């Protein structure tokens, strides 16, 4: 069995050298990891894509009812969450940067900040969901009722079935997104622990970079979700 050469450069991964047995060079290993993460993100695009497709079709067919339903979700909370998530992408990018320049302690700080922001997002999302439960805007329930009219059509009441489809997609899409965020928070917890152990530095920060890619992707999904779900036909 081949033995792992000892780590000679500070910050160079120790246990990851065990992987090197099937890689010829660290560059190949890094390249492979990055390509793998990008391909994984493509699969995620296709995964969310199915729901976006369903959403776009129903929005086209039931625009008025979708607009009515969209105006019933809390724009303030949604906007705050958008800001929170964008900031968390910044903190992740900072963490990677710190690794690149060798600021070990700062990596951990930024990762923890990312986690805090992520948890904050999830908390605010929980608040929004609770609002929907309280307002009887949960689809599939007998008590569902979205009061009001189609925006700018005071004589057109909301079609309850169409509104429920909006909320079905709302919960499915934001729920799936939240699940991905929970996974991301878990991932960063693990990476923060490894960073605290001194594993990452200028010579090796691939997991941070790829974790960051994942998080940026989750952020981008939200950047599409936010206007599509929250901003249908809104006017000042």
């Amino acid at each position: 069995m081949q033995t792992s050469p000892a780590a000679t450069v500070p910050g160079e991964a120790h246990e990851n050298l065990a992987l090197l047995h099937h890689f010829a060079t660290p560059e190949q290993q890094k390249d492979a990891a990055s390509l793998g993460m990008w391909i994984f993100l493509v699969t995620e695009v296709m995964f969310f894509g199915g729901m976006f497709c369903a959403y776009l079709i129903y929005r086209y067919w039931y625009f008025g009812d979708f607009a009515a339903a969209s105006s019933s979700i809390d724009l303030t909370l949604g906007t705050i969450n958008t800001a929170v998530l964008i900031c968390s992408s910044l903190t992740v990018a900072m963490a990677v940067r710190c690794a690149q320049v060798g600021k070990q302690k700062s990596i951990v700080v930024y990762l923890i900040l990312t986690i805090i922001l992520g948890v904050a997002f999830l908390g605010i999302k929980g608040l929004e969901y609770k609002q929907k439960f309280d307002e009887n805007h949960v689809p599939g329930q007998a008590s569902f009722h979205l009061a009001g009219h189609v925006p700018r059509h005071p004589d057109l009441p909301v079609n309850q079935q169409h509104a429920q489809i909006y909320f079905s997609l709302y919960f499915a899409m934001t729920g799936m997104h939240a699940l991905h965020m929970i996974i991301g928070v878990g991932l960063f917890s693990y990476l923060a622990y490894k960073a605290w152990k001194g594993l990452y530095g200028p010579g090796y920060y691939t997991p941070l970079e790829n974790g960051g890619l994942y998080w940026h992707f989750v952020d981008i999904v939200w950047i599409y979700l936010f206007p599509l779900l929250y901003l249908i036909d809104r006017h000042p």
Partner: protein
Amino acid sequence: MATAVLETGERETYLNREYGIQSWLLTVDHKRIALLYLMGITFFFFIGGFFALLIRLELLTPAGDLVQADTYNKLFTMHGQIMVFFFLIPSVPAVLGNFLIPIMIGAKDLAFPRINLLSWYLYMIAGVMMLYTILNGGVDTGWTFYTPLSTEFLKTNVVTAALAVFVAGFSSIFTGLNFIVTIHRMRAPGMTWNRLPLFVWAHYATSLIQVLGTPVLAISLVLVALERVLHLGIFNPALGGDPLLFQHLFWFYSHPAVYIMILPGMGIVSEIVCCFSRKRIFGYKAMAMALLGIAVVGFLVWAHHMFVAGISLYAALIFSLLSYFVAVPSAIKVFNWTATMYKGSITYQTPMLYAFGFVGLFTMGGLTGLFLASLGVDVHVTDTYFVIAHFHYIMVGGMVMAYLGGMHFWWPKISGRMYPEAWGRLAALLVFVGFNLTFFPQFVLGYMGMPRRYWDYSHSPEFQILNVLSTAGATILAVGYLLPMVYFLWSMRYGKPAPDNPWNAAGLEWMIPSPPSTYNFEEQPVVSWEAYNYDEIKEEVPVAN
């Protein structure tokens, strides 16, 4: 570096390096993972096959007298789900692909060995969920899960079945991801894209489909599960939803899925035909491009499953036209394999017999696809036994024969043993005869109007004779499939030890011992020859043992 030797004096192989269940369940060696998959898919193949046998037995007589209607509906549903998701889709990639791709490109393992093991665990978890579904009363949605039947009207284990397929889908996605990165980044020096064996190209194309298509199936099944549990209306017209939306989302994956289920087989056939004709493949570039072409165009034809479903006339025209486009690269491949045989030096070992079978039966299956792509004919034969015959010609006459051919071709490499050649040829013959007898009558049945998924046809006794022929064929086919199970197992103990290159075949996998050592190569190979360099290999195929 000398060949690794164990304390016992034996040469180290991936099989004897470590013993014990933990060394298998926690392995990251692509070769061991391939064998773990082999056990899983063989198990499910026989369960799915058993359900098929029961279906054929029921259809011996017009009346539904063997099982109840609901039971029959569960049988064809689970036959389809098991065969598609737990046998055909993983079979070649997860067994032969896993085993051979790193070796064929000169690497020590796949790019992500641990993700490879994760893929297997996901497959097994999905398998357990599927077994639970079966044992807890089954599911009867049809493998296609059409709504609103599956979401609103059935009382069976729809959600567990959908989730089992969902988990299996992620196993497939990760395998595809692994292969793509491996083929891009792990090729040995000199192994350029243009020197890759077509087996590798085929898996590359397959992996593209797995990675892009499977997530759409995953989300469709999640939505079906949510709809069923939470009484949502996304696909239910009674609640404002559209059942055709489900069909579009489902078939957007499930059509490319059929290419996942055939491209690896095409890769195998190229390897076998070249070896047993002692020839370079005819038109290497065209063959590689055809694989990619099928994968890409295969994403553009899904609604040809929906010509009578209520789509617009113009959509139907477009999808029919595109379906004819995808037929062209498939035809090219058949012509090229045939041309490869021209002026070859051909022998008839078992793998080559399966390859012959593949070329003939895939041609028939593919040609009947042209019938289905033609709108006027499709209206008559869709949802009948014509379709069933069509896809079984390709899946079974094509893919399963290619799989068996590949298993026989690489068995010496995998196990270090030769299988008994006479039995191999007998089994191949039985499979060919049994298969045609089972499925050819179904083309006629379909044209006569026998719908699919019919438990009872007592209103149409004229269908019986062809059904009897079909069932007779199925019993022969079953024997043909059981034989290799038996003699492969037999060979592991009593088979003749295999040399490094029993076929004098081209390819990196034949330049290392049988079975390979754990890290495949003692030194990283440097490739300076083209694929299928049979012009440089002087030896012929050794006479069969």
